[in-house]
């Protein structure tokens, strides 16, 4: 029951990156990703510079390259799209391994992949060094609307419980010799999803009752993270400033 799944992608550690307050990291990561996204296409040296910075941060946070690589799996749909681009785009053609590919399509595909990879890498660094609860507290400190913070906080708290519900339902189902083999079994999967929804909904009601019983009147006070010190902000600002500088230079150069 008390697994650490709820810690999501968090990898415990005591590195300087781990110790930064969550909201400081959120600002740095978000700013850096915006810089990456706003970099003009084909500015290869800029993408290499971003990657260099991320390698440095990954090393500082003592995160394994394999951990980052695992996160890149969600990039797969982009990869498929990127692979199609050179085949479908028009313009000047080049021959690669007997295939006729579009030169601009290749460049666009490479840009797309570079940006997606850098963005996911940054997110993995944030997720790997920040506990989900801290992230929620950080977002609160950044003045995300209260309702959204509360919803996120409940999600972090109950993800495990709902996952456990699902696991128990699956075990109970499989214990009666069920295995989903084809469309014939989709009905069973659909009712599992439905039952899980109803259970979660009912749990929501019970949680609400329990909250009312302790005098809840519509205001949840989450105790946020500590504020960032000037030094910590400065650390984060280095990454941010680097990203912005590279993005501007790339824009001016092209």
């Amino acid at each position: 029951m008390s697994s650490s799944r709820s810690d999501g992608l968090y990898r415990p550690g005591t590195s300087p990156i781990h110790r930064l307050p969550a909201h400081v990291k959120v600002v740095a990561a978000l700013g850096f990703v915006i810089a990456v996204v706003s970099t003009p296409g084909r500015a290869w040296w800029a993408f290499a510079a971003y990657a260099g910075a991320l390698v440095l941060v990954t090393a500082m946070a003592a995160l394994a390259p394999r951990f980052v690589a695992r996160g890149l799996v969600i990039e797969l749909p982009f990869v498929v799209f990127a692979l199609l681009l050179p085949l479908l785009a028009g313009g000047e053609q080049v021959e690669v391994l007997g295939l006729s590919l579009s030169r601009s399509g290749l460049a666009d595909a490479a840009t797309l992949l570079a940006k997606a990879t850098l963005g996911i890498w940054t997110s993995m660094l944030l997720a790997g060094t920040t506990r989900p609860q801290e992230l929620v507290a950080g977002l609160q400190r950044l003045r995300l609307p209260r309702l959204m913070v509360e919803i996120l906080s409940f999600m972090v708290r109950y993800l495990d419980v709902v996952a456990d519900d699902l696991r128990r339902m699956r075990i109970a189902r499989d214990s009666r010799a069920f295995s989903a083999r084809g469309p014939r079994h989709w009905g069973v999967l659909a009712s599992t999803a439905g039952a899980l929804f109803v259970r979660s909904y009912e749990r929501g009601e019970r949680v609400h009752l329990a909250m009312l019983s302790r005098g809840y009147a519509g205001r949840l006070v989450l105790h946020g993270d500590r504020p960032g010190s000037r030094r910590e902000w400065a650390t984060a600002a280095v990454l941010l400033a680097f990203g912005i500088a590279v993005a501007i230079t790339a824009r001016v150069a092209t």
Partner: protein
Amino acid sequence: MTTPALDVRELAYAYPDGRQVLFGLDLTIHDGERVAVLGPNGAGKTTLVLHLNGILSGGHGSVTVGGLPVEREHLLEIRRRVGIVFQDPDDQLFMPTVAEDVAFGPTNLGLDREAVAERVTEALAAVGLAAERDRPPHHLSFGQRRRVAVATVLAMRPEILVLDEPTSNLDPASRRELAEILESLSLPTLIVTHDLPYAWQLCPRSVLLDDGVVVADRPTTELLADEELLRAHRLELPFGFDPRVQPVRP
């Protein structure tokens, strides 16, 4: 006679779908009393519990807590006075850390930061979990979570404690630890349970509920010895358990 800690009079209630669960229930608890509420599934135990702090209302009859009627205008005070520990601690514990969860109730009462912190420390000490204050509740064992759930209501300094099936899913050691905590508190306590030996161990008095009314209200030993009564209301003692020959409690 002093004001009873809890006084339920002729309580009747039907759910909005028309299903009537309580049919004129009377129950009085005095200061310092620990009372077990026994009864088969569907007897109305949970419905009764939800009336004690005004979560459910609008039926017939009255509930008063320490002389204060459970009515809309003093709902907050009622919820401070009546501490309910629900059956599933996962329903009760939802804040990111144990300490924040225990602070939830006192904060709702409008206490300032220092007062809240004091309540949290006091409540966690009372359940022996002071060391776990900064951990997320879902990292605790089930027994620990149940104890945190008790702490979350103790932090409101209630005048009566109500526990719904406190021993469900507990291993024997957690069960004993919880009993020790409950015995150490000098609060009037209502324990809703199917666990008859637990009722016998903790509560000198028991109330048997069935079909929405109190069918028996006697000393626990005497009630549990009445086999006919138990059988008539689908209650059974565990195999080999005899309340008459159990050793006297230490």
